């Protein structure tokens, strides 16, 4: 696996040597941008982000050998194996909303309401629920280290499973069932969570993601209250991040947003994240999900 990933990185640098996969360094702009931008530019919001364009080119070339596929394969094994204290396979016990064992379209159909859990859950949370309720795993064991960290030998099982499930919604339309009263409720609650300003810097999600054409440094910020912006917040998750070589889920991304908001940490697989995802993914309804992606 490591060899393939290293190979992928080699392609990346071969294709566009000026592109760095690290977060923009505080002190430097990408070389390409420096050349083009006038010395005394006023902020041109509509100005295309060269680094992003380069990365999109690379992403297209990588489409056939996305390292995310390795995690997807591992996830498929985990989905089909009999596992856990109850020795049951998720494939024969877990209903992600499309029927027991059905993964096709499950990712784009969540968050949704699950009557057996009496909760609105996103895909990752639902798989965790199945691992606990059907296979007998302990929630606290899963929640202890739920995300892939740099230098971990592999991604957590839950990340592999999410990647497998998400891959089976590739090129399908996002269809969060917002007409269900409980899902609608989660959406409206999510909207209020997105509005909520607190913490030392008075930030809400909307400070960065509530209007069009904003950037932090060179990073474009999607406006998740619009369909066009929300799909940008959904696309590419779960994603293989070149920096650190880790596979990261949409839950992880929400977690890291709260970190940057200077908030404490959301509890893993809790309502605050499910409701937020219901709002964002719900706003992307009707648009095509491209499957697990690659991130800088």
């Amino acid at each position, binding site marked *: 696996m490591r060899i393939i990933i290293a190979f992928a990185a080699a392609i990346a640098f071969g294709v566009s040597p000026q592109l760095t996969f690290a977060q923009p360094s505080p002190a430097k702009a990408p070389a390409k941008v420096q050349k083009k931008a006038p010395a005394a530019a006023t902020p041109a*919001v509509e100005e295309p982000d060269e680094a992003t364009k380069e990365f999109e080119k690379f992403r297209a070339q990588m489409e056939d050998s996305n390292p995310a596929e390795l995690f997807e394969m591992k996830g498929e094994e985990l989905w089909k194996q009999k596992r856990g204290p109850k020795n049951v396979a998720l494939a024969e016990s877990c209903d992600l909303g499309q029927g027991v064992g059905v993964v096709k379209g499950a990712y784009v159909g969540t968050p949704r309401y699950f009557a057996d859990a009496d909760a609105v859950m996103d895909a990752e949370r639902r798989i965790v629920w199945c691992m606990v309720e059907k296979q007998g795993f302990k929630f606290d064991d899963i929640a202890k280290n739920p995300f892939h960290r740099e230098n971990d030998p592999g991604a957590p099982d839950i990340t592999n499973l999410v990647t497998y499930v998400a891959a089976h919604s590739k090129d399908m339309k996002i269809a969060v069932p917002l007409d269900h009263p409980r899902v609608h*409720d989660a959406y409206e*609650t999510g909207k*209020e969570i997105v509005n*909520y300003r607190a913490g030392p810097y008075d930030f809400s999600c909307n400070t960065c993601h509530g209007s069009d*054409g904003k950037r932090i440094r060179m990073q474009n910020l999607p406006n998740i209250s619009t369909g066009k912006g929300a799909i940008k917040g959904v696309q590419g998750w779960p994603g293989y991040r070149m920096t650190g070589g880790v596979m990261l889920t949409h839950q992880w991304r929400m977690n890291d947003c709260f970190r*940057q908001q200077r908030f404490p940490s959301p509890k893993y697989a809790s309502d605050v994240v499910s*409701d937020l995802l219901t709002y964002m993914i719900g706003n992307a309804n009707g648009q095509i999900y491209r499957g697990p992606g690659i991130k800088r």
Partner: protein
Amino acid sequence: MNTRKIIALTIVAAGSTVASLPAAADAEHRAKALEIIKRDFQPRGQAGVDRLAEDGLQAICNRTGNNPPEYIAKRMEADQLATVKLPADGKLLGDWKEGEKIAQSGRGFTWTDNPGLPVGGNCYNCHQISPKELSFGTIGPSLFQYGKLRGNTPDIQKYTYSKIWNAKGFNLCSEMPRFGHVGALSEQQVGHLVALLLDPASPVNK
């Protein structure tokens, strides 16, 4: 601090009496969101769950969609402005080179930041400032030629210092953090940022 809270509460009470405080768009879901926020976070690193509680200003901005009625905004802005702590030696203009370093740094206050280290100003995250730095954000307005356009007068120095110390003194629900007020930046650090913006020798004003 307490005075401010009391004033804020008084205003809320007065507002509801005369029924002129705009209601939240969706009070039911807002209440639900607050309940979930209170329940679904855990402390991590330096970020405790106490950060989830709204202070008086955040509460007003959250409840009015960041658009409080004028009579509330004016009184609370004055209240915020009164918190600005000017340097003891009265020197508002520091060293622009130090200011540039502070403006570049975005560190501080997240659960991965070491609370023992100095906090950055985060300025370039949201503003264009020196023309030499092309990696700048656009959440706030461009500050390029800030001093050239306004002049380096004592009044402008005081305004600039106060704005960085507590932006809410001028615009109650501004997106900009209250850097001095929350203890992120010291009097001296704010002075260095004032110099970055106003010193004729700063690249901002070239």
